[in-house]
């Protein structure tokens, strides 16, 4: 998987903490292949639903999986090709604003 070298210390720690557990690694590989509800995931492991839910939360905080609600279920999926990371989202927002600011500047300078 691609680890963004620009990740700060906190984000990197969250990532490594998330991957340090075998169950969590298994969850990530499972949902990389296909989306699963949290209940479906919980059936795979010999632990309580609450324990699995906690693992999913750690993964979500680290940005390795995303959870979306579908009716009463929470669906879990991973997309390692585009690692979901607050930092890269903000980088994308910076790019958007760089271009917007340049367009503003262009309008202002063409007035003269």
């Amino acid at each position, binding site marked *: 998987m691609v680890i963004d070298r620009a990740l700060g210390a906190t984000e990197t720690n969250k990532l490594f903490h998330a991957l340090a557990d075998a169950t969590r690694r298994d969850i990530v590989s499972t949902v990389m292949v296909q989306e699963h509800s949290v209940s479906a995931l919980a059936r795979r492991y010999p632990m309580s639903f609450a324990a699995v839910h906690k693992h999913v939360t750690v993964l979500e905080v680290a940005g390795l999986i995303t959870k979306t609600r579908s009716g009463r279920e929470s669906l879990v999926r991973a997309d390692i090709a585009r690692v979901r990371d607050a*930092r890269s989202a903000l980088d*994308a927002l910076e790019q958007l604003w760089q271009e917007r600011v340049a367009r503003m500047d262009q309008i202002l300078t063409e007035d003269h």
Partner: protein
Amino acid sequence: MPIVRVDKDIDAHMFTVVSNYGAPVERVWQLYADPRQLERFWGPPSWPATVVGHDLRPGGRVTYFMTGPDGEKSAGYWDVLEVDAPHRFVVNDGFANDDGTPNNDMPTIRMEFQFADDGDGGTLMTAISTFTSADAMIELIEMGMEEGMREAMGQIDSLLAIPM
């Protein structure tokens, strides 16, 4: 290069950009106060904005839509919270349904714009975007990215379709 500073605060899910322009505050303010100017720069060339309604007063609303390369439309609105012309305004930016009504299932972005004299005849603009949560921030930005990516993929597809 107009950008002076960018501040990304993941914990506060806030993004700040400070930019500098060689025009007075009143002129830069007009870029936002005039709907015909706003729509010229708000969206990228691939997804230009069209401003439909524009009432930049507290309690007022700005409505707009973006048009994609295949003609698809994505509508949005600004609920105007505070205005102190020409120095500052604050809005909640949200997604709208196709009929222009706010889509209340989607999180909004609080945007604050400040326009200050840079002491040199120009303007320093500070734009602060605050998301409701880190999740909302990632989701909303990625929605924008996905459209850009879809467009890029479409361009790749058309390149691949060219007979060799």
